[in-house]
């Protein structure tokens, strides 16, 4: 393999200085003359009919400029991810969840707008809410949307499960449930709309898919998309959450700004972020797994029900992703997965790091451990026996002839398993070790076309500006893109700047989702940089009067391969190239190999690659209180190629804690359709004292579809950490928990019967 100078190195975050000094401008840090603030009035009942909204009293308050309701909107009043869009910006009649906005007050201050909300008289006739999937799917259920209460339903069929079960010696079944989880980025959703005086409008937004916002804002302001400019401000985390919500407040702020001719900012408070905007789907999942005595899994049949809340949002794609991943990283001949998302009168569920995979992985990996117990086979050996290898058929019968590093991730955690597996229980404390594996598709796959446009522009001083439509939300894509451009062009990383996403200036690159930035985005940057490199090499060959093959670019110089001291500074090469007329900028497109997929059976080519992983957790449980201490956590992932070890392990550590919290701590709690814990005081967000001691082990089995072989790593650890936790605790307690989060209280409740 070629030696890399920058790829594979722990380069510091390139946009880190402005963040550690507090100078980075997040949306809330931008002030514009005459700026006003919006605050949304929320329904407060999970289902109902709006009879009237009287804002006359609110409008009399000093400092209040406007109250917007559905009738004041300028466009179709519909948003969503997939047509037919089902979510109103503000409902004109029916309320479908308690946190739904029904009006926007615009005032001089946020506090003033919030106070004025109290003086809006909204007459709402409550309807009996539908709060469970069972209620929603009942035959005589009221329809939350005209098309019914099933948002999306598909079935994957590989082989014939009946035949598979007939071949089995053992068949086990289990039912599992998971709950809603909130994204909890520290910066709540915010958007600022500024009329720009040229008959256009600019939105500064904390978001992850700027072009998605542009499209929806333009449609709902009833202006051409080219009249809308979206600038992604520094974004304080997103994890899937700042898509629909950013669209909603972007449209509201934009509408108010257009009508008033003044800048308008809408900044959510924490309670609004939790209760008003999307969460991770809750799930009810039934598994049936058949295996031969030797451990060979012959069939898996799965039914996934996802509670998507009031609106579709990403439910269709989450439903598909859960379906494709439900059988796990195993080569199984007979698979049937029915996956369905359902409407209920709760806060809508959408994208959240992992995207349907954590729910099914928890269930699947719990069941694999149960199967191991049944068969008397070591859980790791059972996984190894069935694990996918290059050349095997995935659940969709796709065959990868490389970059299937699953078994290596098992090998990586095995020593720790042997070390920790034998700890004796003592008096008050119980010990347990669990492992869990994950498979996670990289790229949009069958969810749509997967194209990224990236530009690389070199100035005459050899500094480089990279533009790409994918958003930096903290995950480090700017750093990765800088590394790739610097590697290709032979310059130091700090000569590269990756610009903010501004829809006027970069190409639509689709949403920043599906762990695709490094893989698909990185490819585009690499290709653009390679084209610029050609100009430099051509120019240098003219300057050296030698063949292009004799030139390398490194350390900011064009260097002769045969004489390392023969160097021309790249700024001289770039300047000469400019004056010679060689292009120094290129816009490249990376298109993931398109999916080739049968949408009835869901068989075929889906993702360009999968990330594989295995986590091990070793826990100590206090049998009195149910407190759990994670003594060891090993996370191994096949990432193809590590571009930046520090950034990649940072992704693993962060995603693992979110997974651990999903497994142990966090849940959005409802009572009568109203969220009871919409604050950090009562939503059990993990503090630094709740962290887990994640050790990351990378497996590098390169993919031809990513830059230098790299595959994404942003999402997969969530699922594996949650599932490994569940297996570890179940082993420690000697009881199979079939629900996450497994809280201290749940653990104590089980032990209470046994002490």
């Amino acid at each position, binding site marked *: 393999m070629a030696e890399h100078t920058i790829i594979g190195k722990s380069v510091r975050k390139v946009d880190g200085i402005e963040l550690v000094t507090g100078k980075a401008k997040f949306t809330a840090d931008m002030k514009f003359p005459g700026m006003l603030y919006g605050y949304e009035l929320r329904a407060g009942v999970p289902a109902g009919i709006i009879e009237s909204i009287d804002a006359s009293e609110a409008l009399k308050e000093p400092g209040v400029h406007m109250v917007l309701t559905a009738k004041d909107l300028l466009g179709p009043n519909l948003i969503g991810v997939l047509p037919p869009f089902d979510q109103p910006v503000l409902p004109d009649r029916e309320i479908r969840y308690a946190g739904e906005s029904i009006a926007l007050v615009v005032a001089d201050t946020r506090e003033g707008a919030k106070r004025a909300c109290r003086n809006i008289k909204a007459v709402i006739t409550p309807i009996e809410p539908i709060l469970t999937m069972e209620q929603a799917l009942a035959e005589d259920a009221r329809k939350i949307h005209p098309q019914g209460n099933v948002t999306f339903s598909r079935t994957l069929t590989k082989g014939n499960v009946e035949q598979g079960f007939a071949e089995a010696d053992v068949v086990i079944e289990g039912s599992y449930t998971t709950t809603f989880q909130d994204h909890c980025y520290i910066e709540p959703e915010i958007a600022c709309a500024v009329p720009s005086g040229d008959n256009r409008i600019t939105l500064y937004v904390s978001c992850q898919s700027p072009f998605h916002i542009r499209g929806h804002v333009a449609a709902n302001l009833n202006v051409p998309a080219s009249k809308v400019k979206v600038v992604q401000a520094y974004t304080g985390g997103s994890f899937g959450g700042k898509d629909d919500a950013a669209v909603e407040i972007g449209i509201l702020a934009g509408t108010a700004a257009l009508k008033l001719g003044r800048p308008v900012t809408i900044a959510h408070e924490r309670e609004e972020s939790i209760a008003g905007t999307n969460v991770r789907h809750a799930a009810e999942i039934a598994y049936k797994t058949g295996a031969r005595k030797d451990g060979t899994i012959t069939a898996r049949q799965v039914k996934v029900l996802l509670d998507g809340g009031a609106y579709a949002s990403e439910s269709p794609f989450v439903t598909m992703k859960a379906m494709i991943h439900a059988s796990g990283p195993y080569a199984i001949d007979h698979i049937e997965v029915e996956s369905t998302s359902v409407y209920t009168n709760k806060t809508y569920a959408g994208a959240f790091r992992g995207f349907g995979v954590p729910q099914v992985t928890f269930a699947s990996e719990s069941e694999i451990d149960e199967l191991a117990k049944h068969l008397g086979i070591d859980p790791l050996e059972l996984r190894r026996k069935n694990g996918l290898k290059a050349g095997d058929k995935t659940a969709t019968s796709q065959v990868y002839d490389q970059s299937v590093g699953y078994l290596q991730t098992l090998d990586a955690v095995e020593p720790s398993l042997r070390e920790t597996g034998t700890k004796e229980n003592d008096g008050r404390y119980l010990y347990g070790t669990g492992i869990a594996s994950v498979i996670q598709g990289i790229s949009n796959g069958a969810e749509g076309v997967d194209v990224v446009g990236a530009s690389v522009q070199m100035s005459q001083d050899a500094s480089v500006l990279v533009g790409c439509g994918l958003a930096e939300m903290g995950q480090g894509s700017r750093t990765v893109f800088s590394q790739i451009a610097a590697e290709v062009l032979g310059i130091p990383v700090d000569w590269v700047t990756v610009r903010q996403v501004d829809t006027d200036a970069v190409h639509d690159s689709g949403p920043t989702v599906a762990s695709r930035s490094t893989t698909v985005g990185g490819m585009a940057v690499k290709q653009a940089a390679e084209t610029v490199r050609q100009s430099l090499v051509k120019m240098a060959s003219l300057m050296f009067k030698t063949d292009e093959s004799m030139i390398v670019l490194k350390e900011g110089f064009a260097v002769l391969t045969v004489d390392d001291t023969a160097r021309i500074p790249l700024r001289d090469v770039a300047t000469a190239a400019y004056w010679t007329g060689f292009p120094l900028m290129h816009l490249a497109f990376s298109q993931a190999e398109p999916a080739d997929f049968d949408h009835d059976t869901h068989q075929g080519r889906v993702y360009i690659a999968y990330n594989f992983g295995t986590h091990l957790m070793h826990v100590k449980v206090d049998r009195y*209180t149910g407190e759990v201490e994670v003594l060891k956590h090993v996370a191994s992932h096949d990432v193809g190629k590590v571009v930046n070890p520090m950034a990649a392990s940072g992704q693993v550590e962060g995603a693992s804690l979110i997974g651990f919290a999903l497994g142990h701590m966090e849940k959005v709690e409802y009572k009568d359709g109203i969220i009871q814990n919409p604050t950090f005081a*009562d939503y059990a967000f993990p503090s630094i004292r709740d962290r887990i001691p994640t050790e990351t082990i990378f497996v590098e089995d390169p993919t031809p579809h990513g830059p230098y072989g790299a595959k994404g790593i942003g999402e997969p650890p969530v699922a594996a950490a949650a599932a490994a936790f569940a297996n570890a605790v179940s082993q420690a307690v000697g009881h199979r928990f079939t629900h996450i989060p497994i809280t201290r209280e749940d653990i104590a409740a089980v032990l209470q019967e046994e002490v």
Partner: protein
Amino acid sequence: MEYVQPDTLEAAVSRLGRGGCTILSGGTDLAVVNRASGLKPECFVDICRISQFSGMELGEEGLHIGPCTTIAELAASAEIPHCLSQGASAIGSPQIRNAATVGGNICNASPCGDTLSPMVALSASFVLVSPRGSRAVDAETFFLGPKKTVLADDELLTDIIIGREFLKGTSAFKMLGKRKGQVISQVNAAVWLLLEDGVVAKVQAAFGSVAPVPLRARQTEAFLTGKELDAGTIHESLAYVKQDIRPISDIRASEAYRYRLAESIFHDVLKQAAGLACC
């Protein structure tokens, strides 16, 4: 809005007598309440500049703790009974503890306030002053319910006294919540213990978050008094803990789990106070 910072008790009481005032100490609870209500107070009387309101001093009756002593100062203090500094350490985060005051924690009267059960276990006395005069109220009778106390609108907590008796002996506090850092108690407990030759000469215990107000554990105390404090006695005492508390299910924990935690926590604090190896 009016914001006054009296530097004497007299000035504060006189302003309070004119009405329309909100007493402001550290403000960490008040700011949350005011943000939620969206209401703008007419007048804040910030009492933290009254010099006698800060710090601790040993007097004839016992240890005087000024109401504006911060929770952080309390947490760091070696002069006060251990359960009180432990309770203070358990509150919120460093940022909260640096701003919040002990008087504020008491007057806010949250059933889960972590200095409350220590105050009750230590039979602390609260001195309340209004334009009508001064009175002393025992910690146990001060609290009437969640966010409710015997304080009148124009009445000010001016002094907290831990009696001399309770400066002897040993004490301990423990709480558990939904996470490990920056967390609200699902249950907390404080115990003060006077052992003579391994025998319980006197014990006082109190629980928080198991009732609308912090509760003294009288039946448990009665059982323990006069007994030799060994593992068996401690274990037996847990049966009385159940009788002493009356928890409910809410967003933070179920009733059943609160019973479970109360026993476990009491087990731990009793051992800790007795200097026995714990957990």
